């Protein structure tokens, strides 16, 4: 007979209750662990798509407003800028769909390689992109979605400009999550002029690559300073910040989920505390006897608390295991499908495991402390009188 054996025997006295309470704790801990992966997962997601040297420059009034194309040339002169590429929204709908189903932009073909050196684009395809006026480089996701092949011709009908353009696909961005379609801005410019217009004298967005991450902030300040008091004042931000704003609503959702999870944890603590109280009440006779034969208040308190903490910790460990299994499954799913790809970013790290176990311990201590203290502090004669 040992104290550990006594705690174990007491835990096994009502197996169904222990299983249900432990199950509730395990599920709550698993849920919390999974949610704790979300901020880091989103960060990883952003890191995957964003470079720490790329800057987005757009109209301060919003990304639907444009900037003069000439401003791109001025940006290129800024100290520390390696390259700058103007990008303008075409709003083209694939003829078979009739609506815009993927982002498509008119870009400066000769700047792509310098601004996006991290994008996996075949150099020969990049060369073809600059060579063919109607050439287009398409993200793998769009290519797969429509079953397009390199060399294929596709027509996009613009929902913004009064021209429909016919493109020759010359390259692919071999990135599973690249959802875009780039083509040469001269092609749109010339098509607009051919229609009797003034051509494409604007840039919707300017993507800038800095030589050094340390210079990014200074470059952004300089660019925004350059546009001050002009008709198109700019707002520069890092690529990560730019995408992060797109995920802003998702992060708000995460906050809400974390709050709800916090409430779930509180509920679990209350449920576990109630179970612990019931257990102590049911065993008040035994506890009185233990006290009578010489078990002191501290020993009784420690034994009862140890029972709840042991249950919560074992259940919490199971919860962490469940969350690990779920993220393993998510990573397996991520490999099966492009759209499930981001699931692979949500990883249970050692700090998350540690936090999950700490949470279990916390639940056990908070749930057990009041009933254990209540049972321990009662005088033995009072307890015996009540029971016998």
């Amino acid at each position, binding site marked *: *007979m040992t*104290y550990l054996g006594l705690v174990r*025997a*007491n835990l096994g006295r009502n197996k169904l209750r222990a299983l249900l309470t432990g199950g509730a704790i395990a599920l709550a801990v698993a849920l919390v662990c999974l949610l704790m992966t979300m901020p880091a997962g989103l960060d990883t997601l952003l890191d995957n798509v964003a470079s720490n040297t790329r800057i987005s420059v757009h109209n301060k009034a919003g990304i639907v407003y444009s900037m003069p194309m000439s401003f791109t040339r001025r940006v290129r002169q800024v100290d520390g800028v390696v390259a700058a590429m103007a990008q303008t929204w075409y709003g083209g709908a694939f003829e078979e769909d009739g609506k815009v189903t993927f982002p498509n932009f008119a870009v400066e073909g000769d700047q792509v390689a310098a601004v996006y050196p991290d994008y996996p684009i075949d150099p020969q395809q990049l060369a073809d992109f600059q060579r063919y006026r109607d050439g287009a480089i398409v993200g793998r996701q769009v290519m797969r979605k429509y079953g397009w092949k390199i060399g294929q011709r596709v027509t996009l009908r613009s929902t913004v400009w009064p021209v429909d353009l016919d493109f020759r696909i010359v390259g692919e961005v071999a990135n599973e999550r690249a959802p875009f379609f780039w083509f040469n801005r001269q092609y749109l410019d010339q098509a607009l002029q051919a229609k009797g217009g003034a051509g494409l004298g604007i840039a919707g967005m300017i993507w800038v690559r800095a030589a050094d991450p340390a210079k990014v902030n200074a470059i952004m300040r300089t660019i925004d300073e350059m546009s001050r008091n002009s008709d198109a004042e700019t707002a520069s931000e890092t690529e990560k910040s730019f995408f992060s704003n797109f995920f802003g609503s998702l992060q708000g959702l995460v906050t809400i989920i974390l709050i709800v999870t916090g409430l779930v944890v509180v509920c679990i603590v209350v449920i576990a505390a109630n179970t612990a109280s019931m257990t102590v009440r049911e065993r008040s006779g035994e506890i009185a006897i*233990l006290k*009578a*034969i*010489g078990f002191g208040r*501290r020993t009784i308190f420690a034994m009862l608390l140890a029972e709840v903490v042991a249950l919560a910790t074992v259940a919490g460990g199971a919860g962490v295991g469940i969350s690990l299994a779920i993220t393993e499954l998510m990573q397996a799913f991520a490999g099966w499908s492009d759209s499930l790809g981001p699931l692979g970013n949500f990883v249970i790290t050692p700090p998350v495991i540690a936090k999950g176990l700490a949470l279990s311990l916390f639940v056990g201590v908070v749930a057990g402390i009041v009933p254990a203290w209540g049972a321990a502090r009662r005088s033995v004669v009072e307890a015996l009188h009540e029971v*016998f």
Partner: protein
Amino acid sequence: MVDEASSIPLVAIREVSRHYTRGADDVLALQSLSLDIARGRFVAFMGPSGSGKSTLLNLISGIDRPDHGELMVAGELLNDLSEDELAEWRARHIGLIFQFFNLIPVLAARDNVALPLLLTDLDKRERRRRAETALRVVGLANRPNHYPRTLSGGEQQRVAIARAIVTDPDLIIADEPTGDLDARSAEDILNLLRKLKTEFGKTIVMVTHDPRALRFVDQAFHLDKGVLLEGEAADRASAAIQLAAGGGSVRDAGA
């Protein structure tokens, strides 16, 4: 062996009073009671319900404290000990036996017996050995792994007695040990308690309503309304109990 001639009593009660408050009522459970119990004696406290027997037992076992008077047991003045000190003292000096056995249902007989040894410095092996020895003394050497639900009432009470003696206490306190047993089992338990006194020199203080107990104890004290009966009153009470028991011998009734 038994040291009945010792001049220092194991239990020395001097002018002890205890009252309780039950709702609006103030109940005087014991009134200025004085009594000595020598080491190695087997004594019984008898009396009607509410006579103060259990209160006296609680005081002697250090479960409760008197309002007035002095209570010296096993060389310790219990009046001033704190709850924690009393618990520690009980673990060292007292073995308790209850009417309803009060074993831990999720522990086997041997583990139930070994429970008080958790409070000692003995290692696991020694605790197990002593628990098995105690089970052997009470005649349950062959049932160490049986759980309480698989034992009869008499056997459960034997396990409870083994639990009470496993720490080799100075004093064994038994509160109605035969109260929940059939006649045969009750007789066995009283025999066992007697054996603990005669063979192992144990001092036993028992509260009982059972008239059969008079045949086994060295001395029976009679309580009524918190007062220890003496002289003719004690004799009358003793005679009444003997009559109820159908005769038999009281070794030293009424002191």
